[in-house]
């Protein structure tokens, strides 16, 4: 649906300083109908990428291509995109309803369609009750909900959200994630940036990870996790077995736990031998698990390498 091809962008911070490269030959693709998380630490270049994608800033080199399904001209492409910026600000003297109607009118859709979408997404985002209040009286969470609603006012086929979950309480985060999944079920493409990996892991089937403006990973979330499996088991047993365990060759590490227990780690290949030893010694096994890193561990451990 969207293809970043070797995109480079630099900013001149000061006249006498060298330009700072923010996006460095960044390439990735966004597949139609998917829900894709855009991950990277603060300052990695996520917002810059989104602004380049939407035409707010120019790029130094490379290209950003949009599929024909989005439209032939850039104006047509924009009419099919719903965008929600990071920390949005709204005209405080308007009511939420007036704000949505204004943006809907700019989108060129009928009043009836605007009303239908306000009703549908206002209820899903739990903001309908406040739409007749002035925006200046809204809390941060309410502003986030209004911003999300305004991005959906014209039933866009591509929804781009920049840190949509920041500033929301757990209930709000859950509601937003539900709406993102609902949008995806309706066949819309969702692309959202976050630096909180757990949010992305929970709902995104695809991932784009960038580090210091460079491409780090793009593809299925499950593939990244599969590739990152440590092929290791860990077991927790009483520390009375410590001396016996130290004699077994297959054990990689032994760690003392706080509650009179020890955690031992061994390779997947030695699983059978370990279980035989447990049975022979009549060891009471407290815990046995396959050591799989979380997405957060995979991304930030790998990013720091």
């Amino acid at each position: 649906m969207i293809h970043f091809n070797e995109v480079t962008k630099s900013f001149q911070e000061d006249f006498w300083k060298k330009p700072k490269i923010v996006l460095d030959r960044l390439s990735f693709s966004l597949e139609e109908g998917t829900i894709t998380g855009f991950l990277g630490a603060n300052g990695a270049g996520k917002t810059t990428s989104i602004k380049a994608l939407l035409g707010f800033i120019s790029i130094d080199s490379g290209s950003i291509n949009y599929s024909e399904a989005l439209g032939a001209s850039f104006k047509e492409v924009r009419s099919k995109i719903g965008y929600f910026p990071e920390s949005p600000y709204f005209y405080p003297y308007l009511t939420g309803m007036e704000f949505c109607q204004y943006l809907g009118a700019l989108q060129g859709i009928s009043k009836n369609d605007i009303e239908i979408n306000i009703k549908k997404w206002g209820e899903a985002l739990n903001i309908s009750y406040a739409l007749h209040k002035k925006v200046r009286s809204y809390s941060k969470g309410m502003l986030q909900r209004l911003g999300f609603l305004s991005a959906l006012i014209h039933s866009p086929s591509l929804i781009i959200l920049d840190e949509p979950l920041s500033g929301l309480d757990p209930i709000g985060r859950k509601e937003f994630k539900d709406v993102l999944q609902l949008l995806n079920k309706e066949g819309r493409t969702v692309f959202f940036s976050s630096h909180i990996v757990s949010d992305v892991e929970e709902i995104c089937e695809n991932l784009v990870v960038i580090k210091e403006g460079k491409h780090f990973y793009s593809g299925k979330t499950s593939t990244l996790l599969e590739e990152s499996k440590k092929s290791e088991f860990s077991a927790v047993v009483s520390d009375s077995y410590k001396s016996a365990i130290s004699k077994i060759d297959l054990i990689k590490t032994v760690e003392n736990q706080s509650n009179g227990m020890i955690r031992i780690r061994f390779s997947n290949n030695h699983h059978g031998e370990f279980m035989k030893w447990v049975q022979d010694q009549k060891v009471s096994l407290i815990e046995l698990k396959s050591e799989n890193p979380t997405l957060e561990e995979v991304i930030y451990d790998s990013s720091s390498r």
Partner: protein
Amino acid sequence: MSMNVLLIAKQSFKEIYQSKVLMNILFLGVLLLLLTFVVSEFSYGVAEKVTLDIGLGLISLSGVAISLFLGSRLIVNEVENRTLYMVLVRPVARYEFLLGKVIGLAAIVFLNLIALFSLLLVLYFALGGSWDNMIGWTLFFVYMESLLVLVMSLFFSLFSNPIISIMVTLTMFIAGHGVETVKETHLYQKDDLLRGFVDFYTQWLPNFDKLNLKNYVLYNKFLPNDWFLVASGYSFTWVFVFIVFAIVLFNKKELT
């Protein structure tokens, strides 16, 4: 004009209206009433003329001040508050956004001028003044002067910041009003450098003195009909030039 421009203009008008900038009408209205009272006490026989003089001066000042201060922040505020992202991500061209904002502010300036002018006319007639078409033309050129200041401060704000924009516009406004007076001085005749500068200024930069009709109204001076045509064309051309420059700049502006 596209529907988008009108929608943005309406929004811009509403935004400025809600910011209570039109409270200035009330303030200047009261000031005008007070000054008229004082003037009628001291200016025997020509109270209506002095009232008209002060009134037109105040109206001109308020139009220029609103245009200058709000024009310099018209787009900058939208960038700083990130409200323009919500608009420009839609099928709205940047020039439509800019024109909409300008028209919205121009409407506010117009409303401000009309309200103060109406009050001034009431006072003027109450003091025995009579209608002269030149009064209407003066208001028209006061409005054109404000519009020119508006688009100038907007243009300069797009590549600097509001404070620099205000300073540059104000300097050009004062210089533009003063160049014709400088031409009448002895120094202008003697100093080649000054003459070169003033001649360059009058030829290539906005000469606000060409839009100043106040003295003609007050002293009943005669102006040929084509003067109005030339002055209107002159002011429209400058407004157009600055709007085009502003659109070109805004189209290239990085909205970081």
